[in-house]
């Protein structure tokens, strides 16, 4: 026979243990649903690239013997350009008219590529190179990139090919912090399978199951007392 008093004691003690995580989960959950995800991601801040118009059939770059993942023709401020993604994830650029390789985009060119597509009202405060060996947490990718800091606090990342690879508004950063709390990985904000969240999730489930067992027992007891 299940001892109601013992179950109740377990439920209370487990409840104390998961009170703070549950508070984090609910508060972060509320924050994450407050705004549409498109607004959080700043999707409206960047307009899509213009369609490509070629003057002549494109000449592919010489890639014989070079391991690469993809070759795509992309639009940039100066016109279409080949973007070769190599096996290690880095990119090389090439001229579609001749197939000749280009240099990576520089800071001002990254800013130009960004400003041509930016639809917001803020202005650029600075342009800084990102160290691919120590990328900012908000970028998440170890790639060569330029960080453009805007006057409204938004950060935009433009990679070495001139593509805008990350849009980080202030709200996105707050959302991301809350996501880190939600999955109990505030440092990396990627690992949804860490021991902390698994442990506390199991304790929480146990606490709720105990509550569901206790509820009818308590109702029956109260009725019996009446």
């Amino acid at each position, binding site marked *: 026979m299940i001892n109601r008093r013992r179950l109740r004691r377990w439920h209370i003690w487990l409840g104390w243990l998961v009170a703070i995580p549950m508070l984090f989960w609910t508060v972060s959950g509320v924050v994450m649903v407050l705004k549409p995800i498109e607004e959080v991601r700043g999707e409206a801040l960047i307009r899509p690239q213009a369609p490509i118009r070629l003057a002549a059939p494109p000449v592919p770059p010489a890639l014989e013997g070079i391991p690469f993942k993809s070759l795509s023709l992309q639009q940039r*401020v*100066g*016109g279409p*350009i080949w973007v070769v993604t190599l096996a290690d994830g880095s990119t090389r*650029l090439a*001229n579609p*008219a*001749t197939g*000749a390789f*280009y*240099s990576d985009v*520089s*800071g*001002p*060119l990254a*800013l*130009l590529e960004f*400003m*041509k597509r930016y639809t917001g009202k803020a*202005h*650029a*405060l*600075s*342009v800084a190179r990102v160290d691919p060996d120590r990328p900012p947490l908000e970028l998440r990718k170890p790639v060569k990139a330029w960080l453009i*800091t805007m006057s409204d606090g938004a950060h935009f990342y433009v990679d070495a090919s001139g593509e805008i690879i990350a849009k980080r508004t202030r709200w996105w950063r707050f959302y991301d912090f809350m996501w880190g709390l939600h999955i109990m990985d505030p440092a990396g904000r990627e690992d949804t399978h860490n021991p902390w969240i698994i442990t506390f999730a199991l304790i929480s489930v146990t606490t709720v199951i105990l509550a569901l067992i206790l509820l009818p027992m308590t109702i029956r007891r109260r009725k019996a007392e009446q």
Partner: protein
Amino acid sequence: MEPALAIFATLLGHCWQTQLAPQDVDTHCFTDMWKGAHVRDVHVVTHDGKSVYEGETIYSFDGKSIVFTYVNSLGGVGGGSATVADKVISFTGSMRAGPGSPPQPIDTKWRMLGDGYEVTTPAEKAVRRFTLAR
């Protein structure tokens, strides 16, 4: 080369410098970028031969007009557009000297000469002449 950027042709492949003050020199080196899709202007300001700051401007044709974007090592950012008429390039836009600085309007004219170019800015009384760097 992009026809709209042909005005820069005589500057490409060379460095041009001007004396800002007795010990201060501004040197601009122009190169063709991406087979003429852009013109790259990398400059360095030196004091007594030591670099004070460096910057880079990219001139491009966006399909309608010449546009330029500038970034320097002090955190300065600027940009705008340019029009060409009779060997004179007129630049308009705005520039921030640093991340916290207010925007300053850009209103500059470059007159292309056979052996360099002259820069006129209303705020400065003197005309700066850039000559081939030695």
